[in-house]
């Protein structure tokens, strides 16, 4: 894969940033964020044709040669732009490059919100305990707010597949069943039982919303005072049932404190209550249970995909091997619990 160097990046930015004559890239480093895309932080000194200079702090995300997430760089970029200004904190998008030939993969560049934390495991340290109730209110509060945004006003269908209240669940189910089966590593009778149950009981959505697709602790920035500064990682965003985000966030495999606090922040019933108040939507028990089991299937599809990417040697980032190893069985335990069989 093409090595991203400061020189390469600087030359590219000089030809791509509006008004830029020269760009010097400094202090570039790769960040340990997620498994689906490479993330780099850097400073850019931009000398413009009008003689002015600008210093920018930027984050670059690049598609690797192989990933377990079939997301479109454009979808993530446009998702950020669509939701910007609707009461959910997100970084400002700067540039999108879809041509993989230029920088070794499609890339997006955004403002870098520095000095904040994103680790979900750091939140389990004793020093952060006092911030967890506030973070829970904010995380599920923003999630509820997202659910309440009028999806018709976001023009999502210019870059997202459309959905209806009738087919929202079915479309997602079909997609993730296919993804799971395509990447399956060995027989999985628990997940197959879950698929049969999901197939028999597909719900009709009460409303459509912009669904983040991976809304949980670990995908937001927070400051030393326990304030959420930005919601990140919108690459799986789509139009769908807002219950999907709630169910995903309370997936047992995201219990980072290894106890009953979902996303390592709050118990399940508290998470639901915060979301309901913020969204104005009552989470119907059977529909939410469906999406919780669906979250297990979607999770399992992602975890076996990481295993496949690792085993084929397409991407040797250690997180792919590490995460897929423990997550696949934990996800099956979670599925058994939701089916009342643990």
């Amino acid at each position, binding site marked *: 894969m093409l090595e991203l160097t400061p020189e390469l990046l600087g030359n590219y930015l000089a030809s791509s940033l509006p008004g830029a004559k020269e760009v010097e890239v400094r202090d570039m480093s790769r960040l340990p964020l997620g498994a689906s895309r490479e993330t780099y932080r850097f400073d850019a000194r931009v000398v413009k044709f009008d003689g002015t200079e600008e210093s920018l702090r930027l984050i670059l995300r690049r598609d690797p040669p192989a990933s377990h997430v079939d997301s479109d760089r454009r979808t993530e970029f446009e998702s950020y732009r669509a939701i910007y200004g609707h009461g959910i904190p997100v970084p400002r998008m700067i540039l999108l490059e879809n041509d993989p030939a230029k920088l070794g993969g499609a890339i997006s560049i955004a403002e870098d919100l520095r000095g904040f934390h994103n680790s979900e495991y750091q939140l389990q340290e004793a020093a952060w305990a006092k911030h967890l109730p506030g973070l829970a209110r904010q995380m599920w509060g923003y999630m509820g707010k997202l659910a309440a945004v009028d999806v018709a006003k976001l023009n999502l269908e210019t870059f997202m597949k459309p959905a209806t209240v009738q087919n929202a669940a079915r479309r997602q189910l079909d997609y993730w069943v296919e993804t799971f089966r395509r990447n399956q590593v060995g027989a999985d*009778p628990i997940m197959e039982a879950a698929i049969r149950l999901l197939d028999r009981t597909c719900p009709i959505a009460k409303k459509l919303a912009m669904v983040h697709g991976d809304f949980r602790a670990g995908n937001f920035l927070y400051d030393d005072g326990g304030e959420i500064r930005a919601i990140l990682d919108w690459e799986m965003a789509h139009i769908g049932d807002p219950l999907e985000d709630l169910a995903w966030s309370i997936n047992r495999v995201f219990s980072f404190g290894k106890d009953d606090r979902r996303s390592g922040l709050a118990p399940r019933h508290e998470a639901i209550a915060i979301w309901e108040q913020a969204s104005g939507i009552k989470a119907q028990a059977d529909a939410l249970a469906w999406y919780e089991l669906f979250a297990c299937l979607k999770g399992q599809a992602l975890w076996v995909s990481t295993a496949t990417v690792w085993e084929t040697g397409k991407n040797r980032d250690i*997180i792919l091997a590490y995460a897929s190893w423990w997550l696949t069985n*934990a996800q099956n335990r979670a599925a058994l619990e939701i089916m009342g069989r643990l």
Partner: protein
Amino acid sequence: MPQLAGFDANSVAMMSAMLKMVAEEWDRSAAWRVEENAAIRALMKAAVPVVADGGLASRLERLAARVDRDLHLKKLDEANDELREALTMLHANIETLRTPAAKQVNESIWTELRRSVERRRVGLANF
């Protein structure tokens, strides 16, 4: 030794965690596979007279009669995978039947699936 930070430090931390996972799995690897393969075979033997599909019944009978003689992990895994694939088919079939015997087999399958996740449980997992 250089002081690591950021991406490199994170990668090394994960490698360290994986070594712990390997150590946990090392001693039990063959034992749980042998136990599970035997448990699934016993379940299949009991299900043979209950399933409505003759082809499935023949397959279950054939698989139930096998014994793990080669205890290399690769061979145990091959047998385990074949057994779990057949277990999936058995479960899908038995779910559709309403006889007391079928319900008993169904409950046995769920019990075995619960035991299967405990055999594979990773100590550092979140759940």
